[in-house]
């Protein structure tokens, strides 16, 4: 009997377990950076503020709710590496309630039922496996009911 879930480990475009562990706060909870001198918000996290070049940045947890600015269905015609099981994959630009923009995947809603301006909330989902075979979790967004 099969002893393992047959979820392949991709060979290219692969997450390293070490790197992904360092970046886990961003992937799990949208923790980015806030510049202490100019108050600009950044996601993913930065070490130098791209606006005022200050190196004084502090961790900042972005809002978990936002609005779809634009979205596009994955129309490559063949599945992206590590995403073979997800058909109707939708990628969207989401403006979070605190003004930060993230490019993200929309879970569970095909492009046909999504509109610009839809309210979305962050959910944790399993992403493609890491180079060691470890499960990698990260944010996606889900359309809010109503």
């Amino acid at each position, binding site marked *: 009997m099969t002893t393992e*879930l047959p979820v392949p*480990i991709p060979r290219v475009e692969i997450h390293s377990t070490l790197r992904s562990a360092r970046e886990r706060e961003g992937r799990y*909870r949208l923790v980015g950076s806030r510049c202490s001198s100019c108050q600009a918000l950044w996601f993913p996290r930065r070490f130098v503020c791209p606006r005022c070049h200050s190196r004084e940045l502090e961790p900042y947890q972005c809002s978990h709710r936002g609005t779809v600015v634009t979205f596009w269905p994955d129309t490559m015609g*063949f599945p992206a590496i590590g995403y073979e099981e*997800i058909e109707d994959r939708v990628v969207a630009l989401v403006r979070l309630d605190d003004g930060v923009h993230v490019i993200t995947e929309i879970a*569970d809603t095909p492009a046909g039922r999504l509109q610009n301006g839809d309210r979305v909330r962050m*959910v*944790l989902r399993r992403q493609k496996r890491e180079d060691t075979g470890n*499960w990698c979790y990260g944010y996606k967004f889900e359309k809010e009911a109503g």
Partner: protein
Amino acid sequence: MAGIVAYGVALPKRRLRSSDIHATWRNVAEDVLEKFAFVERCVPGPDEDPITLGVDSARRCLEQAGREPGEVDGLVFGSCTNPYSTKAAATVVGEALGLPNGIFSTDVQFGGRSGSDALTVALALVGSGMARRVLAVASDCLSRHVPPGHVYEYSASAGAVSFLVSAEETVAEVEGISYWASDRADWFRVAGERYLQLGGGFVGHMSSWGLVENLLPAWKELVRRTGLDPASLQYAAVPQSTGVMPLIVATRLELDMDVVLPWVLTASVGDVGSAGVPLSLCHVLDNAGPGEKVVVLVYGWGGGATAMLLHTTQRLPSLPGRPSVMPEVERGEYVDYSRALKYEHKLLRPDRGLSGYY
């Protein structure tokens, strides 16, 4: 007295009709589907597992309680289908929720009782004064661990329920709790195996030997300890792996069917494993009024039984976000059987693919 402050529910969006499975396998007589209340069940998406569902339910629970993650000082994660055999799921859940790192967090991992045992451990932590607010998460993706073509495939489902437990601001308080545990190999998964196996068969007397032999003594002990009059009961959340199980429990424990059957969700969501009875309890709490008695009866494969008596408080009607169960149950979208097989990773594939094309 320790009790439940808030609760959250998360079910996968996808649903599979039993008739679709039956059209493929024809492995049971058609009337069996009706007798066992196999109508439809949840299918976890390819990117969902007990950790993601657990996190989703816990976020909703904290939202309902109006509490920040930093105010929680304990986390107990109960599941029998943890994505890891060795690594804890509770640490992933804790970090994903943003709970403080300096708290007690642990996994409870066995059979269908692990979810409610997470609740028991949380109650113990709060009751003993070791913690102030503890999250108990019950989460399972059973459907990935049932072989294709097995009768249980009609029922095995996925979902998660979370409870915030504290001694303050409770909506349901524990009056009494009793246990009975004896060794019964009715469902098991040997280390390294992926698929669940049956020890006692799926139908007939032996299929419920562990259920009756453990639940009956636990129930009797609860009645003795609390002085409960079973006739005064208004609500009961009971094991519901199949639609027959609640009938067995109600008959053997001499409970009124009206107390048991309205809270059985098998026909809508299937068997949610360790989150099954907690889900039923949430459905009860969605509909109960203040000052009512609720009994929670749990049996976990080979893990013994728990009987718990709760009473609801005056805070329950003003709890925001109610009802929480039926909106999740009713938001389903159907997928076909072949897609469900793909999502549940039951199709053989090379273990190291380059891409979908090569």
